[in-house]
């Protein structure tokens, strides 16, 4: 599904260049559930964003469904993010002035669906995550768990085949973290490819395959759970 080939990413910082990813090569098969573990600042987020077509590597290539994503033009890359990739953010990144329903409608609006089609699909998704009665609530009027579910419904709006989850439980209490994990596992069972970055070993243990990222290198491939 997605493959990183000798990916190196350097950032230029005031105090000098920082090596975020150091010659990383990895392949995630279609339908696989992979966790990437590592301490804070080890390059997990950079790796996920690189796989998600958002950070151009300094060296190396990223292939998604057989296409070199950084050889695509801006429009094609945007289309890929819209239709194939779904991000789960640690901080949910909901638009504060939109209601739950409208937040879920955003990817559908970007896909060019009519407002009626957007509404129907968003209603279905919010119903599925148990928020059918919170449609008109703004994020600030929702609990953390509810916000997380709105964000998940938004991620799933265009039925992505690859989910990139960056510390998806970082802001959640244990019960909500468990709930989030259940959602990701359910998606995995439905055939969606999931790559999850986490520093929590218990969460990582639920993945099919665990990778460890240290100092920008994938150096300790773990056994399957």
């Amino acid at each position: 599904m997605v493959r990183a080939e000798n990916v190196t990413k350097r950032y230029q910082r005031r105090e000098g260049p920082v090596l975020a990813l150091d010659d990383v090569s990895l392949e995630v098969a279609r339908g696989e559930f992979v966790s990437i573990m590592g301490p804070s600042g080890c390059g997990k987020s950079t790796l996920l964003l690189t796989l998600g077509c958002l950070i151009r590597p300094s060296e190396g290539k990223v292939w998604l469904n057989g296409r070199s994503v950084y050889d695509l033009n801006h429009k094609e890359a945007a289309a890929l993010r819209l239709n194939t990739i779904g991000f789960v953010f640690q901080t949910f990144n909901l638009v504060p002035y939109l209601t739950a329903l409208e937040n879920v409608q955003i990817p559908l609006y970007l896909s060019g669906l009519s407002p009626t089609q957007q509404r129907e699909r968003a209603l279905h998704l919010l119903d599925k995550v148990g928020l059918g009665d919170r449609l008109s609530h703004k994020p600030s009027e929702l609990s953390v768990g509810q916000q997380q579910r709105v964000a998940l419904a938004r991620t799933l709006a265009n039925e992505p085949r690859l989910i990139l989850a960056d510390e998806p439980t970082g802001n959640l209490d244990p019960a909500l973290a468990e709930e989030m994990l259940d959602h990701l596992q359910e998606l995995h069972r439905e055939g969606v490819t999931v790559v999850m970055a986490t520093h929590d070993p218990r969460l990582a243990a639920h993945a099919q395959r665990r990778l460890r990222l240290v100092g920008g290198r994938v150096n300790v491939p773990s056994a399957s759970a």
Partner: protein
Amino acid sequence: MTTLRLVLKELHERKSQLLTSFVAIALGITVIVAVRTMSHFSEKAVAQELDNLGANVLILPKGATVSNYYSADFGEYVMPESYVDDVTTSRLKGVDNLSPKLTEAISLDGQRVYLTGILPKNEFKSKPAWQATDGIFARPEGCGTVVPGALAKALGGSAQGGNSATGSRQAVVEELGGTEVMAGSDVANRFALKVGSALPIKGERFTVKSVLPSTGTVDDTRVFAHLHTVQRLFRRGRVVNAIEMIGCCKEISKGLIDGLNRLLPEAKVVTIKQIAQTQLNTNTMMERFSLIFLVIILLVGAVSIANYMLANVYERRKEIGTLLALGATRRCVSRIFLLKATLLGVAGGLAGYGVGTVLAVGLGPRIAGVPVLPLPSLAGWAVLLALVVSVLASALPVAKAARLDPAEILREG
């Protein structure tokens, strides 16, 4: 969800921030509309006053000079009366009023007096070719002296002239019979002439139709009769020795004089520069004044909008990053911000036009000393101007928004 709904939701959410920018652009347009509306009517009023000073173009026989004209002594200099037809039937723009004259010296009780033949208005009306020129005595559209009917009334005159007898336009005489004359004030005093008095000229008996008020010019020493009567009395044939003309001041600078010279190569066309120039200067001054105002005010509005949009882009970095991560193109992000700038411009332009017009109508009579009416044609310009300023001022912030690196924003957490 639509782009418009997304923009409206955001505008609604951050009303207070928007208000500053909206007020800035609306205020700018308000001042421009108010100044423009007042100066429009002020210019018209000034132009009308200046027109009343008299003719600003003279058509004289080739050898005659302006001195001949002012001294009313043309000697043998004459030119065909048909020149009037040539001008009125030509396609020259800016010809507002024509008055052919033939002046001869006569002796009344041994004193030298000028007898000037003029063509009353009914003579113009009787000629189909002249009627087709849309009325030479009307103020043509586009001329600096056009005053809408309601305003003209408010100014105390009519669209074809006023009540004062000092102006050339007021010298337009509706009718003048073959045996009627009008006496200048000086002549009337010297010879004790009143309306109805008999006045013998060259052996013929004339009746004084009216006594003209004093003008302080050579006209006070004239007796006016019908042009054709004067021509007959002096066996001159169909000739005149001056055609006074009021040219619209703007047209004078746009080639009216050249046009007249080409049309009448055998005549001499003279502009009475002081009057024409004053008219031009007045208009130019007002236009420049408005322009300077406009530029400064629009700059202030533009800076305010640019500042607001930059702050807005910064504040919405995370939202923009999320949109890009969700699959929005840079074009889509630009569209969202440009639509916002467009709405701001249109609303600011409309509000500015409304308030500016109310201010102009309300304060115009006090500030400019003239009655002011709304100028609906300014509404379109106000909206267009506000729109252009708003969109241009937003160009840099919009480009910045579209160029944001979503990865960098998302990594900030």
